[in-house]
């Protein structure tokens, strides 16, 4: 079975949302959010879409079968390209 990676922790940190707040918003236990972030649990399509809707992003921006690029790498790439990240 393939791994499912996610960026929930990153989005949560960026928006300053606690696990409990996100859990209440999408209707799950806050432990479930913790397991999701750690990659120990794969969400149903319904839960994945609810989390994506909460952050206002497409679901593929939050979940992927490929490992996400780290923030440091993204910044490094942006700096090399002379862009403002």
């Amino acid at each position: 079975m393939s791994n499912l990676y996610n960026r929930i922790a990153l989005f949560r940190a960026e928006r300053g949302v606690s696990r409990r707040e996100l859990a209440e918003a999408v209707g799950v236990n806050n432990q479930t959010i913790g397991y999701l972030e750690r990659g120990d649990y794969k969400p149903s399509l319904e839960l994945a879409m609810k989390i994506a809707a909460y952050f206002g992003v497409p679901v593929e921006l939050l979940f992927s079968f490929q490992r996400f690029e780290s923030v440091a790498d993204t910044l490094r790439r942006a700096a090399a390209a002379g862009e403002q990240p």
Partner: protein
Amino acid sequence: MTLLKKMDDLVYATGIDKILFRKVQPRSLRWIPLFVLAALIVGYVFMASITSRPTAKFFMGWLLFYGAYLAASFLRVFGPRFVATARDPLDERELMLKARAYAISGILLAGFAMLGCFYMASEDVPGLWHPKPYDWINLGFGVQACAMLLPSWIASWLQPPPLADQED
């Protein structure tokens, strides 16, 4: 202060409300159920080994067995959540965990019941132990204790290790 208020305060002071309304933080019970199960078996063996009048060994077995029975019924409250409350319904992960734990537990119990039936067919074989009427009653309680304990124990192993960071 009325008697009702005093009783109410006592409930909150002793923490009984946390058990009754399942306000306890669910935890993984990975090893405690093993000791409870061992106590059940040892207690049963002590009780069943007495052939004549009850002795100190029998009472020790009785205490061990029914102590383990009580522990089995209380441990469920502290293990992974299986019962939804009005404030906290079970989410999809908890429902799936519950379904898997109960399914595996049911298969195990059915397997042991089947082996027990095969063993009981050996009634005519001399030298083998067979339950007396009182042993059957204890066996019934033992099966009930296992049915209460196994799902919590299995769910504790099925779910990932607890989060190091329980901040929120």
